[in-house]
């Protein structure tokens, strides 16, 4: 990989656009009649201050990072996989199904549950992938349809198959032997997050250091060229989609076995889209993804804290977060703000990046 020319003022611009984003958000909070300073302080506290807050950030971090990786790896081959949400649900349901089997030792049960989740996610993700490589069915559409289907299937499993006696809309609690140990109590983070290090390491190695990774990136750059030099582009795309589905399934299994110990109806509420946004902000670079995913996770955790402590409605925060994301992610704003504080706009360097 050739090194990208560094744009002067890029980091300055990024910092300034984050500041701008929070300023705009603060203005919104003020207009709605709440105190923006207090809100931001509580947002920060909700993400980082205290065991519970850090634990909540880590709990949110895991699915956002994994689904982000799933999206990022597919996008390298120009496959817009918006279906991580569906893989997440299917993985969670499969893990719950396996987790309910009684009488297994933990050494067997935990890997079995993770494997079940991975398998379910792979199959669920592979169907749109197969349709794309075989019939050229637009994946951005089919994967979204698969998300809705997976959400409804989960809801069917929760309400009709595993109906608990209680009124809550969730499956029964899985067996002790399938549960990851909680850390940072009373938050819901668990030892499952240590798996993330492994997944990130493997994926960075796979995409940036191996033959397969090279084929994958080459296919994304130019499919015809890849075919011409003898890579099977279709096979590469399909394998990549399967890997991404597997990661999505793993994310779901980790939610069931680490966070909830059961499956709630509608538990994810668009987590996979946060993952996708994290990936988009990181310019689909898996090496930068942990940082952006962490920022988003902190925002989500902070929003929960904010809602708990102040009377700022959660809906306001859920509206603000995507606004902040837009402002952070727009390159034009970043470059504009960066160049404001410079004598001459770095015109040539910018063109170098785009090309």
């Amino acid at each position, binding site marked *: 990989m050739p090194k990208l020319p560094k744009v002067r003022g890029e980091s300055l611009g990024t910092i300034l656009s984050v500041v701008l984003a929070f300023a705009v958000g603060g203005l919104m909070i003020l207009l709605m009649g709440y105190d923006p300073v207090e809100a931001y302080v509580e947002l920060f506290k909700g993400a980082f201050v205290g065991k519970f807050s850090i634990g909540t950030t880590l709990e949110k971090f895991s699915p956002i990072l994994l689904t982000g990786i799933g999206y990022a790896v597919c996008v390298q081959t120009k496959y817009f996989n918006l279906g991580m949400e569906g893989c997440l649900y299917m993985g969670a349901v499969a893990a719950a199904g396996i987790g309910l089997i009684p009488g297994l030792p933990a050494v067997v049960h935990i890997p079995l549950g993770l494997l079940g989740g991975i398998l379910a996610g792979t199959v669920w993700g592979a169907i749109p992938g197969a349709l794309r490589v075989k019939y050229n069915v637009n994946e951005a559409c089919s994967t979204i349809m698969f998300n809705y289907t997976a959400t409804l299937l989960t809801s069917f499993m929760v309400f009709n198959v595993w109906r608990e006696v209680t009124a809550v809309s969730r499956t029964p609690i899985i067996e002790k032997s399938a549960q990851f140990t909680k850390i940072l109590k009373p938050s819901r983070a668990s030892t499952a997050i240590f798996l993330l290090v492994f997944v990130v390491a493997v994926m960075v190695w796979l995409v940036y250091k191996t033959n397969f990774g090279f084929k994958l990136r080459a296919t994304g750059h130019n499919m015809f060229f890849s075919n011409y030099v003898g890579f099977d582009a279709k096979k590469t795309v399909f394998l990549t989609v399967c890997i991404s589905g597997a990661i999505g399934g793993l994310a779901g299994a980790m939610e069931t076995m680490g966070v909830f110990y059961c499956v709630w109806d509608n538990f994810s509420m668009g987590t996979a889209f946060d993952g996708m946004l994290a990936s988009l902000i990181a310019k689909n670079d898996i090496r930068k993804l942990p940082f952006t995913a962490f920022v988003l996770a902190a925002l989500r955790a902070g929003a929960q804290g904010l809602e708990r402590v102040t009377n700022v*409605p959660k809906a306001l925060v859920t509206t603000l977060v995507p606004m902040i994301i837009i402002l952070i992610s727009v390159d034009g704003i970043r470059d504009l703000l960066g160049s404001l504080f410079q004598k001459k706009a770095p015109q040539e360097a910018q063109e170098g990046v785009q090309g």
Partner: protein
Amino acid sequence: MTTLNLGDIFSYQLIHATLRSSAPIVMAVVAAIISKHANVFNLAIEGIMLFAALISITVSAATGSWVLALLAAVAAGMLISLLIGLAHLKLSANILILGFSINAIAQGGTRLMMQEFFGTVGSYAPKEMAPFPRLNIAALDGHPVLSSIFSGYSLMEILSFVCILLLWVVLYKTKTGLRLRSVGLNETAARTAGVNTYRVKLGAIVVSGIFAAMAGAHLSMGYTNMFAEGMTSGRGFMANAAMNFGGGNPLNALLGCLVFGLSESLGARLQSYGFPNQFVLMMPYIVTVVILTFSMAGQQRTQRKEKLRELKKHREDLSGAPR
């Protein structure tokens, strides 16, 4: 569970139900097609629809006029899509981030507006709202079958079908349509030919926002008489799927929409026979993927045949011309 009676399910009333359920998607597909031909993958249709649905019903309840409500919704749709267009074209923002963020803002924003302004959670159904007028054809009143099929539609339902037919005319029979399609086919070539691609793209995004807003207004003021959280339930995405199914051609896309409408209204009927609710709701999504697959497979087959024919012709030309 009562026994399944196919005669009850496939009755003439199904036509009316199908047309009614497909109308919101038809209007949204107009929006999707316009932006597709400008080479913009507009996922924000879903979010604009949701905003428009709430704004129109609010204005309708406040003023008692469906005309003002529609105008307010359209203005909102134009404003949002203008922002999207400027951010995408001027500030080179990623269109996918914009689309998903707008959808997320719409979900949170409409919930916030309901909480802050009306003090309700989940749904908002003001009694004093004025819905879109329903057009009844008096001449058919005596005839149950014909009046079921042709009469009793909301204004927007008729308008959406008119719009998609008009869109076909505009796209394929006018200069504007040709320019728009040229941008979608090859932007560089269009620019070389003297088309102002920036203006065409921005215009397409804004017009697409207008139709998305009308689709949304119809959801809360024609299809139902209320606003519910997340009431678009993926119709914006389905419109994008139908657009893909038709390869950007409005008439094929219309066919796709009718299939969605049919699956939705069939599902509603099956529900009364004890069919699990989730599977009923699932039907449109699965049908979308299935028809997408069949249409793409069909397109591939015709393309392959054409290629073979060309190859054969090429060979004949070669053998016919001694050199």
